[in-house]
């Protein structure tokens, strides 16, 4: 009974994403897409992936993490770095992009694990503060990182390009500090974005509705009780945290391959970004993956689509935020929603009868 319900819910979520893809494809073919909106498609997918992955930490594990942009940043830079490194070795752009996606996810996942070990001992506000700091540290470190390559191999520096001390003829600077990485092929397309979103959903939803997911949620609901029935708290906390980080890293690679210049600025990977993703998660509903996707897409598209309205843009954005919060969280709204739902279902049943 419950199992079927879960299956239907999951199918609806996947279906929604596929439907979105189909609609966009049709609009694209018939020429109804403005170039502005076309430019938004990859970020839409990216934010949806970020929101779903953060929801795993915040909604399912129940820990407030504000360092999601940091993991995304790690993924973006390691992915872009790989694509640029292998430019000659692996000519196929698609294959390089694929390898970059894997590397980005792995790097972010490993960092998630390393950071999770000390950080997940903290709770609530303290965890939020430390993860926030982590995100900023990553961003600032990459901002001063110089990496180059010549015949002798790789060179690293934290100062400037000249201190890399590379061979003049063969030396190529790959990461140029604040200028970041340039020349990354723009391999990210909307279809790839949607596929990655579906992959994220597949991993997260299947994880939640399995043995490990139940263990993770039991820790969220009552840590002491979970421990008393033999759940390994550290293991499952780290698992959720690092999977969440890895998926954020993957989103970062997608992001890096949608820009020609990737910089670790506070605009791209600052704490504002982490907060923004958290807003998607909270508005979409904690633990509600479908809600996260809807909130992420709506709130990403809205400011851009309303650009024509100038000053009223942020006003409408704010109103939408308030309405969404009420719709999702107000007890009265939930009551009305369930009433409407049951009426629709009741009507459907009568028809069947």
């Amino acid at each position: 009974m419950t199992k079927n319900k879960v299956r239907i819910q999951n199918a609806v979520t996947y279906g929604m994403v596929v439907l979105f893809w189909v609609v966009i494809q049709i609009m694209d073919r018939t020429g109804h897409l403005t170039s502005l909106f076309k430019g938004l498609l990859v970020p839409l997918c990216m934010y949806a992936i970020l929101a779903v992955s953060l929801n795993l930490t915040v909604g399912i594990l129940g820990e407030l993490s504000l360092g999601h942009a940091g993991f995304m940043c790690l993924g973006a830079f390691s992915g872009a770095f790989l694509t640029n490194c292998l430019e000659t070795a692996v000519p196929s752009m698609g294959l390089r992009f694929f390898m970059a996606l894997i590397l980005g996810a792995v790097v972010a996942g490993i960092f998630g694990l390393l950071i999770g070990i000390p950080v997940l001992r903290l709770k609530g506000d303290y965890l939020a503060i430390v993860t926030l700091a982590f995100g900023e540290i990553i961003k600032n470190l990459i901002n001063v990182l110089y990496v180059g390559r010549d015949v002798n191999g790789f060179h690293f520096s934290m100062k400037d390009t000249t201190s890399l001390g590379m061979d003049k003829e063969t030396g190529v600077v790959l990461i140029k500090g604040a200028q970041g990485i340039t020349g990354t092929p723009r391999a990210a397309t909307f279809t790839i974005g949607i596929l990655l979103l579906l992959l994220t959903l597949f991993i997260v939803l299947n994880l939640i509705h399995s043995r490990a997911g139940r263990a993770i949620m039991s820790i969220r609901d009552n840590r002491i009780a979970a421990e008393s029935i033999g759940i390994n708290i550290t293991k499952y906390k780290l698992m959720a945290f690092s999977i969440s980080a890895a998926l954020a890293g993957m989103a970062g690679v997608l992001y890096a391959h949608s820009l020609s210049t990737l910089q670790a600025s506070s605009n791209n990977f600052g704490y504002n970004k982490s907060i923004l993703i958290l807003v998607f998660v909270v508005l979409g509903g904690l633990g509600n993956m479908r809600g996260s996707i809807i909130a992420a897409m709506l709130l990403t598209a809205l400011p851009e689509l309303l650009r024509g309205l100038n000053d009223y843009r942020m006003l409408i954005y704010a109103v939408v935020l308030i309405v969404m919060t009420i719709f999702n969280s107000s007890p009265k709204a939930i009551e009305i929603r369930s009433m409407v739902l049951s009426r629709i279902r009741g009507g459907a049943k009568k028809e069947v009868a």
Partner: protein
Amino acid sequence: MAKKTTMDAARTTVKAGNATAPAGAPQNAAQTARTPQNAARAAQTPQNAAQAARTPQNAGQAAGKPRNTQAAGAESNGSFPTLEVRNLSISFGGLKAVDGFNVVIEKGQLYGLIGPNGAGKTTVFNLLTGVYKPDTGTIHLDGKNITGKKTIEINQEGIARTFQNIRLFKDLSVLDNVKVGLHNHHKYSTLEGILRLPSFYKVEKEMNERAMELLSVFDLDKECDYKASNLPYGKQRKLEIARALATDPKLLLLDEPAAGMNPNETSELMETIRFVREKFGMTILLIEHDMKLVAGICEKLTVLNFGQVLTQGDTSEVLNDRRVITAYLGE
């Protein structure tokens, strides 16, 4: 109010003595037979010697059914008491919360731990389950030393508990609550779960069947889809017991199972506890303030007062002990 309870308790004691007589008789006999050894133990006899000496007597009791838990090696062949605690102490700052606590619980026994508020009963549970590390003393489960182990290890060794203030996984379904309890007994890897390999479906099916079996024992099978927090209070208590049993323990610790229940619910709970013991051959240690429940189902009692054992022995004797009445009511 308190006085009335004790009077009631005293009155029911006689009845309880009779009621439990058939079940408790052989054990009581064994207990009496062991008295000289208790004396010997008190005289600080080396532990192993005492245990060896006790073996023949317990052999009779050890006819219990074979267990399907990961048995704790050759040691746990049943010749040891299920729980043996010696000289357990812990202090918080200057306060000796538990001081020199001793208890021996034989397999299949229903043992009560009583005492006035703040006597250290729950602290004893927390020590037994590894929430606190004892300052001194040892805990043996089925002859295996589990002193100082972590909570999850102790659960895997075979101690499960419920809590004074109910601690369910409130946003999980009733079924999932029990399935979390089955976590360490029905396994598949996380990757198998994510990829939905055949082993996932197979093990999940086993888990569902086992969980529904447990739920139907507690008459919760109809509510298996409910959120745990939506269950009425009495059923939440039952669900907590079901979840603890799902870990397949050797010893079940119940912390005030009847707290907040009305007399009807309490007597129903008594039946459930009795049933659990019979059906699962479970050894149970319970903390309770409801003297009617204690007198009705416990075979033996230990009374704690200010962290120390005031007295222990057969329920009827303990409840009529003047010191116990004094501890509850004052001079």
